[in-house]
Protein backbone atom coordinates (compact mmCIF):
# COMPACT_ATOMS: atom_id res chain seq x y z
CA UNK A 1 0.00 0.00 0.00
CA UNK A 2 2.86 2.35 0.86
CA UNK A 3 4.36 1.47 -2.52
CA UNK A 4 1.13 2.32 -4.35
CA UNK A 5 0.63 5.50 -2.35
CA UNK A 6 3.59 7.04 -4.17
CA UNK A 7 2.51 6.04 -7.67
CA UNK A 8 0.08 3.81 -9.54
CA UNK A 9 1.64 0.56 -10.77
CA UNK A 10 0.76 -2.43 -12.88
CA UNK A 11 0.20 -5.73 -11.11
CA UNK A 12 3.56 -7.01 -12.44
CA UNK A 13 5.15 -3.76 -11.34
CA UNK A 14 3.88 -4.37 -7.80
CA UNK A 15 4.99 -8.02 -7.91
CA UNK A 16 8.51 -6.92 -8.94
CA UNK A 17 8.91 -5.16 -5.56
CA UNK A 18 8.20 -8.22 -3.45
CA UNK A 19 9.89 -11.56 -3.06
CA UNK A 20 6.53 -13.38 -2.79
CA UNK A 21 4.97 -15.04 -5.85
CA UNK A 22 2.80 -13.14 -8.31
CA UNK A 23 -0.38 -15.06 -7.37
CA UNK A 24 0.30 -14.11 -3.75
CA UNK A 25 0.67 -10.46 -4.76
CA UNK A 26 -2.60 -10.70 -6.69
CA UNK A 27 -4.27 -12.17 -3.64
CA UNK A 28 -3.07 -9.30 -1.45
CA UNK A 29 -4.20 -6.78 -4.05
CA UNK A 30 -7.60 -8.43 -4.24
CA UNK A 31 -8.04 -8.11 -0.47
CA UNK A 32 -7.02 -4.44 -0.67
CA UNK A 33 -9.42 -3.91 -3.58
CA UNK A 34 -12.27 -5.54 -1.65
CA UNK A 35 -11.69 -3.21 1.27
CA UNK A 36 -11.74 -0.27 -1.14
CA UNK A 37 -8.14 0.69 -0.35
CA UNK A 38 -6.91 -0.09 -3.86
CA UNK A 39 -8.61 0.43 -7.19
CA UNK A 40 -7.58 -1.81 -10.09
CA UNK A 41 -8.19 -0.45 -13.59
CA UNK A 42 -7.78 -2.33 -16.82
CA UNK A 43 -5.87 -0.47 -19.53
CA UNK A 44 -5.43 -2.62 -22.59
CA UNK A 45 -3.67 -5.78 -21.41
CA UNK A 46 -2.32 -4.21 -18.26
CA UNK A 47 -4.01 -3.87 -14.91
CA UNK A 48 -3.15 -0.67 -13.09
CA UNK A 49 -3.43 -0.41 -9.32
CA UNK A 50 -3.93 2.84 -7.47
CA UNK A 51 -4.17 3.43 -3.74
CA UNK A 52 -7.29 5.09 -2.37
CA UNK A 53 -5.90 6.41 0.87
CA UNK A 54 -8.93 8.56 1.67
CA UNK A 55 -10.60 5.23 2.57
CA UNK A 56 -7.94 4.78 5.22
CA UNK A 57 -8.91 8.13 6.75
CA UNK A 58 -12.50 6.92 6.88
CA UNK A 59 -11.37 3.80 8.67
CA UNK A 60 -9.41 5.85 11.19
CA UNK A 61 -12.37 8.11 11.80
CA UNK A 62 -14.13 5.71 14.16
CA UNK A 63 -10.79 4.86 15.77
CA UNK A 64 -10.28 8.54 16.66
CA UNK A 65 -13.83 8.72 17.96
CA UNK A 66 -13.25 5.75 20.26
CA UNK A 67 -9.86 7.02 21.38
CA UNK A 68 -11.55 10.21 22.59
CA UNK A 69 -14.33 8.28 24.33
CA UNK A 70 -11.80 6.09 26.13
CA UNK A 71 -9.61 9.06 27.12
CA UNK A 72 -12.63 10.84 28.64
CA UNK A 73 -13.85 7.67 30.30
CA UNK A 74 -10.46 6.99 31.85
CA UNK A 75 -10.25 10.60 33.08
CA UNK A 76 -13.46 9.90 34.98
CA UNK A 77 -12.13 6.59 36.27
CA UNK A 78 -9.06 8.43 37.54
CA UNK A 79 -11.24 10.95 39.41
CA UNK A 80 -13.52 8.22 40.71
CA UNK A 81 -10.62 6.16 42.09
CA UNK A 82 -9.33 9.18 44.02
CA UNK A 83 -12.83 9.92 45.33
CA UNK A 84 -13.28 6.29 46.35
CA UNK A 85 -10.00 6.20 48.28
CA UNK A 86 -10.76 9.47 50.07
CA UNK A 87 -14.09 8.01 51.17
CA UNK A 88 -12.46 4.80 52.37
CA UNK A 89 -9.85 6.78 54.28
CA UNK A 90 -12.58 8.79 56.03
CA UNK A 91 -14.43 5.63 56.92
CA UNK A 92 -11.22 4.18 58.28
CA UNK A 93 -10.72 7.15 60.63
CA UNK A 94 -14.29 7.15 61.94
Amino acid at each position, binding site marked *: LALLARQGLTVSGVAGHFSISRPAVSRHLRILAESGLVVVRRQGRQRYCEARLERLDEVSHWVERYRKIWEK*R*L*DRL*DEYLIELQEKEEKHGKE
Partner: protein
Amino acid sequence: MAKNSLTGERGKQDISITRIFDAPRELVWRAWTEPEHLMRWWGPKGFTTPFCEINLRVGGRYLNCMRSPQGQDYWSTGTYLEIVPLERIVCTDSFADAQGNVVPATYYGMEADIPLQMLVTVTFEDLQGKTRMTLEHAGLPAGPTSEGASAGWNESFDKLAESL
Protein backbone atom coordinates in the same frame (compact mmCIF):
# COMPACT_ATOMS: atom_id res chain seq x y z
CA MET B 1 7.41 -8.89 3.58
CA ALA B 2 4.22 -7.64 2.00
CA LYS B 3 2.24 -9.32 4.73
CA ASN B 4 4.18 -7.47 7.41
CA SER B 5 3.50 -4.12 5.85
CA LEU B 6 -0.18 -5.03 5.64
CA THR B 7 -0.43 -5.86 9.33
CA GLY B 8 1.47 -2.64 9.98
CA GLU B 9 -1.25 -0.66 8.23
CA ARG B 10 -3.92 -2.52 10.15
CA GLY B 11 -2.12 -1.97 13.43
CA LYS B 12 -2.68 1.75 12.99
CA GLN B 13 -6.39 1.12 13.27
CA ASP B 14 -6.08 -0.12 16.85
CA ILE B 15 -6.21 1.98 19.97
CA SER B 16 -3.75 1.49 22.79
CA ILE B 17 -3.88 3.67 25.88
CA THR B 18 -1.74 3.28 28.99
CA ARG B 19 -2.60 5.06 32.23
CA ILE B 20 -1.13 4.96 35.70
CA PHE B 21 -3.77 5.27 38.41
CA ASP B 22 -2.90 6.33 41.93
CA ALA B 23 -4.86 3.42 43.39
CA PRO B 24 -4.09 -0.19 44.32
CA ARG B 25 -4.66 -2.77 41.61
CA GLU B 26 -7.46 -4.51 43.51
CA LEU B 27 -9.49 -1.28 43.59
CA VAL B 28 -8.94 -0.59 39.86
CA TRP B 29 -10.03 -4.18 39.13
CA ARG B 30 -13.18 -3.72 41.18
CA ALA B 31 -13.92 -0.42 39.41
CA TRP B 32 -13.91 -2.35 36.11
CA THR B 33 -15.78 -5.46 37.20
CA GLU B 34 -18.39 -4.42 39.78
CA PRO B 35 -21.50 -2.70 38.36
CA GLU B 36 -21.95 -0.30 41.32
CA HIS B 37 -18.44 1.04 40.65
CA LEU B 38 -18.51 0.93 36.85
CA MET B 39 -21.76 2.90 36.79
CA ARG B 40 -19.96 5.79 38.47
CA TRP B 41 -17.36 6.34 35.74
CA TRP B 42 -18.28 4.47 32.52
CA GLY B 43 -19.99 7.40 30.84
CA PRO B 44 -17.71 10.26 29.74
CA LYS B 45 -18.32 13.58 31.54
CA GLY B 46 -21.96 14.65 31.35
CA PHE B 47 -23.10 11.08 30.65
CA THR B 48 -24.66 8.74 33.21
CA THR B 49 -24.78 4.95 33.32
CA PRO B 50 -28.30 4.04 34.47
CA PHE B 51 -27.91 0.32 33.79
CA CYS B 52 -25.02 -2.10 34.14
CA GLU B 53 -25.08 -5.87 34.35
CA ILE B 54 -21.87 -7.92 34.47
CA ASN B 55 -21.65 -11.70 34.29
CA LEU B 56 -17.96 -11.94 35.03
CA ARG B 57 -17.02 -15.37 33.73
CA VAL B 58 -15.55 -16.59 30.46
CA GLY B 59 -18.46 -16.78 28.02
CA GLY B 60 -20.53 -14.49 30.26
CA ARG B 61 -21.94 -11.24 28.92
CA TYR B 62 -22.27 -7.66 30.07
CA LEU B 63 -24.91 -5.09 29.17
CA ASN B 64 -24.45 -1.38 29.83
CA CYS B 65 -26.55 1.65 29.14
CA MET B 66 -24.92 5.04 28.72
CA ARG B 67 -27.23 8.10 28.81
CA SER B 68 -26.20 11.33 27.09
CA PRO B 69 -26.88 14.76 28.63
CA GLN B 70 -29.74 15.02 26.08
CA GLY B 71 -31.26 11.82 27.43
CA GLN B 72 -30.30 9.56 24.53
CA ASP B 73 -29.51 6.00 25.65
CA TYR B 74 -26.66 4.02 24.11
CA TRP B 75 -26.62 0.34 25.04
CA SER B 76 -23.55 -1.81 24.61
CA THR B 77 -22.88 -5.48 25.17
CA GLY B 78 -20.13 -8.04 24.82
CA THR B 79 -18.84 -11.44 25.85
CA TYR B 80 -15.90 -12.10 28.16
CA LEU B 81 -13.28 -14.18 26.37
CA GLU B 82 -10.59 -14.17 29.00
CA ILE B 83 -10.54 -13.25 32.67
CA VAL B 84 -7.41 -13.39 34.80
CA PRO B 85 -8.41 -11.92 38.18
CA LEU B 86 -6.56 -8.66 38.93
CA GLU B 87 -4.54 -9.00 35.72
CA ARG B 88 -6.45 -9.14 32.49
CA ILE B 89 -9.86 -8.88 30.88
CA VAL B 90 -10.52 -9.62 27.20
CA CYS B 91 -14.03 -9.04 25.90
CA THR B 92 -15.94 -8.13 22.78
CA ASP B 93 -17.72 -4.80 22.53
CA SER B 94 -20.75 -4.02 20.38
CA PHE B 95 -23.64 -1.64 20.29
CA ALA B 96 -26.87 -3.24 21.45
CA ASP B 97 -30.54 -2.54 21.90
CA ALA B 98 -32.08 -2.45 25.38
CA GLN B 99 -32.65 -6.23 25.19
CA GLY B 100 -28.95 -6.84 24.63
CA ASN B 101 -29.18 -7.79 20.95
CA VAL B 102 -26.14 -6.68 18.93
CA VAL B 103 -26.97 -3.80 16.57
CA PRO B 104 -24.79 -1.86 14.10
CA ALA B 105 -23.60 1.64 15.03
CA THR B 106 -26.03 3.02 12.44
CA TYR B 107 -28.84 2.00 14.86
CA TYR B 108 -27.68 5.02 16.89
CA GLY B 109 -27.10 7.19 13.82
CA MET B 110 -23.34 6.69 13.94
CA GLU B 111 -20.88 5.97 11.14
CA ALA B 112 -21.50 2.78 9.21
CA ASP B 113 -17.77 2.00 9.31
CA ILE B 114 -17.75 1.32 13.05
CA PRO B 115 -17.16 -2.45 13.25
CA LEU B 116 -20.08 -4.52 14.47
CA GLN B 117 -17.82 -6.15 17.01
CA MET B 118 -14.72 -4.76 18.63
CA LEU B 119 -12.24 -6.41 20.91
CA VAL B 120 -11.25 -4.78 24.19
CA THR B 121 -8.24 -5.96 26.19
CA VAL B 122 -7.51 -4.42 29.57
CA THR B 123 -4.42 -5.35 31.56
CA PHE B 124 -3.59 -4.30 35.11
CA GLU B 125 -0.07 -4.19 36.56
CA ASP B 126 0.81 -3.51 40.17
CA LEU B 127 3.32 -0.65 40.53
CA GLN B 128 3.94 -0.69 44.29
CA GLY B 129 0.51 0.57 45.29
CA LYS B 130 -0.22 2.28 41.99
CA THR B 131 -1.66 0.57 38.96
CA ARG B 132 -0.59 0.65 35.36
CA MET B 133 -3.57 -0.09 33.16
CA THR B 134 -3.31 -0.71 29.43
CA LEU B 135 -6.37 -0.64 27.26
CA GLU B 136 -6.42 -1.98 23.74
CA HIS B 137 -9.38 -1.55 21.47
CA ALA B 138 -9.53 -3.03 17.98
CA GLY B 139 -12.16 -3.59 15.34
CA LEU B 140 -12.91 -7.16 14.36
CA PRO B 141 -13.06 -7.84 10.64
CA ALA B 142 -16.56 -8.14 9.22
CA GLY B 143 -17.53 -10.86 6.78
CA PRO B 144 -19.49 -10.47 3.52
CA THR B 145 -22.69 -9.61 5.36
CA SER B 146 -22.51 -8.04 8.78
CA GLU B 147 -25.22 -10.25 10.20
CA GLY B 148 -23.46 -13.39 8.99
CA ALA B 149 -20.21 -12.07 10.37
CA SER B 150 -21.79 -11.43 13.73
CA ALA B 151 -23.20 -14.94 13.93
CA GLY B 152 -19.84 -16.33 12.82
CA TRP B 153 -17.86 -14.43 15.38
CA ASN B 154 -20.33 -15.27 18.13
CA GLU B 155 -20.00 -18.92 17.27
CA SER B 156 -16.25 -18.88 17.26
CA PHE B 157 -16.16 -16.95 20.51
CA ASP B 158 -18.57 -19.39 22.09
CA LYS B 159 -16.21 -22.16 21.04
CA LEU B 160 -13.22 -20.27 22.32
CA ALA B 161 -15.03 -19.68 25.59
CA GLU B 162 -15.73 -23.39 25.90
CA SER B 163 -12.15 -24.37 25.19
CA LEU B 164 -10.69 -21.98 27.77
